[in-house]
Structures are given as C-alpha cells and as structure tokens.
C-alpha cells in the first residue's frame, strides 16, 4: 500500500504542481481584449530581462540577462549585461549595435527574429490585438494569468518560429514572459521583471 502511494505521488503530483493552462471562454477573451486596449496608454516601459535558451540535449538552459527599454512609437533598446556586454538599439528602421566597444549599424531586415519580438512587445503594449493575417491567435488562462499563443501563418516566418507565447502579468497586465518556440521545439524564454511604466526614459538610452 505504501509503495502504491509512493508511485501515485511520484507520477501524479507533478501534474498538479504547475499552473494549469486552459482555453479562455468567449467572455474571458472579450475581457482580455478590453484590458489590452487599456495597455495602449503605455508610452514607455523599462524592465530587466533574463533570457533562457533551452536546447534539448542540454541539462540546463543557457542564460543571459540585461535591460530593455521601449519608448513609443518605435524606439527599443535591448542590452545584455551578463555574461557579456552587447547592446542593440532599434530606431529609424535600423539596428545600432555596440559589441563591447565595437559599434556598427545594420538594416533591420538582418535581425528578423529580434524585429519580430520587438514588434510583438510593442504591439502588446499598444493593445488592439494581433495581426490575424500573420498569426493564428488563441487565448488561454495559465492559472489566473492571461496567455496568448501566436502561430505564424506565413511560410517565411514558419521556417524560423513555430509558436510564440506571451504571458501577461496578473499584477499590471503587462507582458512578463515571451517564449519563442523554434521548429525543432527548442525554445527561448524571456522573463521581464522590475517593469516600470511611463516613468520617462531619457533619449540617451537609445544612443550607443
């Protein structure tokens, strides 16, 4: 009997530990979309981020961390501070890069994946929904948090990204996690913490 109880806990307890994910009801989707519209009032956002790259054969993810600044309508600074220093600034249709003192400028088209995520974070901030021509959008509840899953429809995007998940904070309604799943099922998870809304960001942040 004791052995059976042990196996019961061993196999079934983990299923109850994580927050369960379920599809939103139609009413919940409407409420969520209304919340997104309120988020449109956000003019700027700064946050710390930790990036976890999960590769199937690695026991632990590869981690890096940094700071992100977003200023509407179209300025974004994404800077790694650990374990290396690397800063990317997106503005005026270009990517400005500072790689430990080596500075360069690229056309935005050379960083397709980054462009994708910056557009998603910005559009989540702006609210107003997602481009349903580009993505199949589905809405979920993960515990009490809202979760949006985006599956690319366009063949070009499908080659790089299988699915994008955006998890919204229950506290401030902002995006707190972005998960980019690749066609191989390896994925990168970005966790945004210490989020500050409309606190005013110096323009100097968007210079190298």
């Amino acid at each position: 009997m004791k052995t059976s109880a042990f196996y019961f806990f061993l196999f079934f307890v983990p299923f109850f530990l994580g927050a369960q994910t379920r599809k939103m009801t139609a009413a919940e989707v409407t409420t969520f979309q209304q919340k997104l519209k309120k988020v449109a009032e956000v003019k700027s956002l700064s946050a710390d981020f930790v990036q976890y790259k999960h590769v199937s054969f690695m026991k632990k993810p590869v981690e890096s961390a940094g700071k992100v600044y977003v200023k509407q309508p179209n300025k974004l600074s994404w800077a790694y501070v650990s374990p290396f220093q690397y800063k990317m600034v997106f503005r005026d249709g270009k990517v400005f890069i500072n790689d430990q003192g080596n500075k360069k400028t690229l056309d935005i088209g050379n960083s397709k994946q980054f462009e994708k995520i910056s557009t998603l974070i910005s559009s989540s901030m702006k609210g107003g929904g997602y481009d349903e021509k580009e993505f199949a959008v589905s809405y979920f509840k993960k515990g009490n948090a809202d979760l949006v899953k985006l599956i690319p429809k366009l063949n070009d995007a499908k080659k790089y990204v299988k699915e994008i998940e955006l998890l919204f904070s229950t506290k401030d309604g902002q995006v707190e996690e972005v998960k980019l799943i690749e066609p191989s099922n390896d994925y990168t998870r970005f966790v945004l913490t210490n989020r500050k809304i409309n606190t005013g960001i110096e323009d100097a942040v968007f210079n190298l």
Partner: protein
Amino acid sequence: MRFLIFSVVLIVSFSSCGTYKFPNAVGVRESTQQELNSYYVDTTQTYVYRFNMQAFKQAQNGNLLIETQAPEIHRIAMISDFGQTLFDISIYPDRYDLHYAMPDLNKKLLLREVTDIFRTLTARRYAQSALLFMDKQHFPVYEVDHTYYTLKERHVAQILRTKAGKERFTIEFLDVDQRIAEAIRVTHAKYPITLDFKLDRKQSNL
C-alpha cells in the same frame, strides 16, 4: 583531343591528390600509437563557449554548445545571442545527423564544411606517424588522415587540416588549463572565416 582529355585527367588527379608539405618538415617516421585531441572525451561534460565569427565581412556572436555523446560522437549547436539556433548537429566519425539548421544555413556544402571543422575540433584520434624536422627542438607533429597535430606541453596546441594537398583550416588551442580548452581560434584558409571561442565555465558542466 585525346591529349586534351589526358591532360585534364592528369591535372585533376594531381590537384586532388597533391601532398601537403608541412613547413620545415623533412620526412615522416613511424611512431608508437599516440592519442591526440582528448579535450572532448568525457561524456559527463557539456561545454558552453562564447563565440565570435567573422565571415565574409559579417560578424556574428553567440554560444557554441558541445556535448560528448561518446568519445568520437559529439552534438554541436551554435546559437545566436538572441537565442536563435543556427544549427544543431550530431557528428559521427563518418557522417552527421542534422537536427536543425536555420533555413539560410541549411546548405549541404556549408554543413559539410561545418561538420568537418567541428569533427576535427572534437574528435579524439590516434596517430602512428610523426613528422621529422631538421631542427630537433621543433614541437612534435603527428599526422592522421591529412590532418597535422602539433603538441606543446603534452597537449594538442594546433590542428592543421588539409584537403587536396592544401591547407584547409587551422584550429589553435590558445589557452589550455587542466586539459580543458579555454580559448580556441579557427582560421579557414580557403574562405575569409575566423571563429573565436571562449569557454563560459559558469554555464558549462565540467
């Protein structure tokens, strides 16, 4: 016409079967079996290197992941800083299995070259021939399968891979600490490509 065909065959034969002449070497001698390149033989270890690649005037940074699945089988992945997998490949002594390659990099010739570089970097080899030098102070150099291993302080300091009698690429182990390669540089002789790897001990499982 017959002479022309003969000449072409002769040229192709000579160009493909040419013998590489290692600088300052005067001959080859038989040696007792020498184990070479044992940096990546421990199957309990995984390595995370930070890489910087300069290729055709373009730069790319990211992480190189190496898992030893068996002393002669390695799984290698390169990921960009932003987390995008560039390629993920298992390398065997005589073939490779591609798990994923970013569409822009999924080209047979490129993958073959990448596999050759990383197989040379990671595979343990055994040599039975060593080069002879006039200068007796020269570091020992062993040769296996058109690949030359230079030893310094009992570890492989440089691997020079040749193809069709010409240098193809060089791998330098620039910093080795307690049999672990901390810094590596790969320089391609045919294409303008250099790769620098620096070990990230904190994220590696050593």
